[in-house]
């Protein structure tokens, strides 16, 4: 049976960051990893190990640069859609997940609640309005037909 592999290696996993990381986080991770490798390289005299660390450094730099550049990151993400898809999702109502959703939803709830109490509250913006009668304009020909 074919099973997806949640631990499949990716540029992100090599840099120890999430696929949702920002460009700054990517650059920071790349630099941190590079510094680690350089420190280890300086601490050894073993030529074989130094060569291996050189290769590691090249690889980390390449991967970090590829993700740090927006164009190449878009391309990488497009060909690795699973990295962003195979993640746990919040399943609660948006109000419990996103601050912005919560603010807009509860604002509407509060306004509706106050309107029921007879308070004259304006909608937050036109997106939440349903009555646009004020935007109608008289058009003689149409109004004659409707009369």
């Amino acid at each position, binding site marked *: 049976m074919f099973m997806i592999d949640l631990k*499949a290696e990716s540029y992100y996993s090599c840099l120890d960051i999430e696929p949702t990381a920002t460009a700054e986080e990517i650059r920071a991770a790349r630099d941190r990893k590079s510094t680690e490798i350089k420190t280890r390289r300086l601490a050894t005299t073993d030529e074989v190990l130094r060569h291996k660390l050189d290769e590691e450094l090249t690889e980390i730099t390449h991967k970090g640069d590829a993700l740090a550049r927006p164009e190449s990151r878009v391309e990488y993400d497009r060909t690795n859609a699973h990295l962003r898809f195979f993640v746990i999702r919040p399943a609660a109502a948006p109000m419990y997940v996103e601050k912005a959703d919560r603010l807009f939803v509860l604002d509407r709830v509060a306004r509706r609640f106050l309107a029921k109490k007879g*308070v004259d509250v304006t909608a937050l*913006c036109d997106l939440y309005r349903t009555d646009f009668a004020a935007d109608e304009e008289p058009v003689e020909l149409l109004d004659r037909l409707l009369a």
Partner: protein
Amino acid sequence: MSKIQTTRAVPSADRQRTRLLVAIAKLSSRDGNLLIAERLALAEGEFRLAELPGTDPVESIENLRRAVAHDPIHPKFHFHLGLALHRTGDCRGAVFCYRAALQLAPASQRTLIHLALALTELKDPEKKLGEELMEALCQGQSTKELMVQVDDALKAYLEPPSGQRPQAASKKKLESASKNKPAAALPGEPCHWEGVWRVSLLHHLARFKPFNKQIDKRFDHFTDSNDAINFALGCLQLLVAGEPVEAVRRRMNADLLKSHSDQPAMQLLEAALRVASQPNPQSFVTAAVEAIHKEELPQDLVCWLHFAAYGSGGSLPAGEALEAVELYPREWLREPSFVELRIAILEGYARRAWNAGELDLARLLWNEVLAMDPHRTAVAHNLALLAARTRSVAEYPGAWDYAAALRYLHAAAAGDPRLGLEDRRSLHLSLAQQVKQRYFPAKNLSDEAQSAQLRAWLMDRDALDTYLAEWDLYYVASRLSFRSPVHLLGIAKDASPELTVFARVSLLAKIRQCFEGLRWPGVKTFVKTAEDAVEAAFEHASVNLERARDPYYQQEKPEADQLIDESIQHCSTLNVLLIEIIQDDVPEKLDLALRIGRRLFTLPWKVLEPICTARGQVSEDNKTVVDIFERHLLAAAAGGLREPDNDADAAGQLEQLELCCRLTERSQKETSTLRHNLAAMIDSAAFKLIPEDLLQPKDLAQAEKFLAEGRKALEKFPRACGLRMTLVKLLKQIGDPAKLDEAVQLLEAGRPLAFVDEQKASLEETLKEIQDAVPKARASADIRELLESASAEMSTAIDELNRRQTPEAVENVGKAATRALEKIDRAAELAGKSELADLEQQASKLRGQIAEFARKIRER
């Protein structure tokens, strides 16, 4: 009271709708060009229809589109179309419409703020642009420069450099652009549209780290304009945004609120603060229940305050947090607000358990959520990932199947194939990509290593099937995601009517192929809605005017081009697999070739082939990609043909071969050769069942033995046409009527089983020959019998005479001779009729002998 109002409002809206529809029909009924007045009336009519309460959002968008088409210079129609798109989540479309409205009415602050809102719904850099625009509106700064950036962003959508997202314009570019372009929007005065303060306060609070100074400014504005309601609501939002109760209370000390303490908004805020400041779950619930009973707080707000205090983010263990919810009155727990609260708590703890590696607890909690709401896709998705993480063979297939099925069920239930489409697209692409990444070899590998990896892919049938099915589902989802009819069908804007018809048929076939055999609930309804979308696109694409007007064509072109690139790349992957089947020793080549071929050749090749050819994707002998794919498919199929083990095996191979042949329409000659090859293999398998020493019978006895063995072999391999014909020839050679009858039976039984044209022809010809020969053979047998009977009768009479030389014996010989002569005459007559000259001659000779003998006896 409210009920009465509602029941009155509905028929009124319906009446209004009917009247508007009649008016629109009347206005549009006139042939030829419409007068300007008629166009304006039609536009207003469509607008009013769109804004009527109860109008379906999709219908509303269509009405507004028509309004824009009738009167493209009224900003109102563009603005409302933007609003309608914005509400349905098409923020990019909304940005275009708001921008169009602003070009007609550059000073409309109402439009500007909605443009800013739509921009903030997009990703950076547009999101940032939206925030800056909103800020500029609040500050009363000029938005001219920002509008130039908006225009740049929109332009970049229309002409994106190699399909990339637009970048924020550089300052230098911005300056030069603003010098050259006319002022786009505001004269640079403070925003008069009050909504901007309300909206921008929420946007500031929604930030990860809100700027206190900016928030203060908004509250100052509410104070300056003596707006106690929005001040109180602002404080409530501070609480909702996570400000501590004390901080909110400090802000409430403002004089404005003190003087409006009897305002319902203030009472709402006070109640919320009172409930939020309770020290433990029990007192919290008691206070909340009381507030709801007294109608001081809405349920949704209470639920959020509960979650904020005692949800999964707190220190309570999961059990205690759930027990706290149970303290609310039982009947309330069935209300949607409390169901969502319970789900939020369960789900929050489930995610905590997942992160802590407590997978059994996570599974338990998510299953609990599914029991409350079996249609929550995110939970099904999480359980599928959990099955993957635990590598549970028992749970994995069911969990993934359910997660996919739910996604289609939602779209089917809504009757809209575009609902959740991006999610489905990502699902199928992710699965297809993961298979490919696991098996498709990197370019830097050696030939042997590449071949080994491809072989491993072909051997993992489940992985191959997953890749083939998921990629096709991704392709169909991608096609359905286009709003432009030509992109949905996958054709060029100037495609001929024939090609448009072909694209429609091809896409419909692909849709059916993708979903055949799937037993997901609602899948048939989904297929129907998808087919309807294709038909609607076809209808639009068939009208030249509609094609020319297509507002999404340019916008979606980069994605459409990308899908074509991906399709061609996918086909090239499949071609690599076919080559591997040809070159490597993989089992069940025919089956593999067919699986790949079925997916490969149901793509719209009439559209893709010219694109590939234009890109130079042709072979050295100038064959197109389709020719090459056909050649490879047949070669792969040919490699899979083998001597069958039995008839079922032969039938299976033949069925697969026929399906392959049907896919490769251009390679008639090659498909014919393959059929011959399979026929030869079936014959070979059948002949192997007959002992070698009987294969060339030397006498009748051996022939009979061969026939017996041949019959047995034919029973096992009824499709062995060569063996059948050999048996028939032998039977014909023996020639007796029973054998000929058997030959006829063999040929008639072989007729429906023959699958090679030459075999069919040969069978028919031989059958005709034998059917023609049967009457002669029967006559010949009858004549021989008559002649033998005549001879036997005479012999008996002569023997009797030789034993007893009596007059009676002599008389008997005479009588026998008379009877024998009668028989011989009958035989001669029959031979004459059947044109059997040798038998006629034989009869004549025998007649002469008997007549001579009879004469001699009479003389004696």
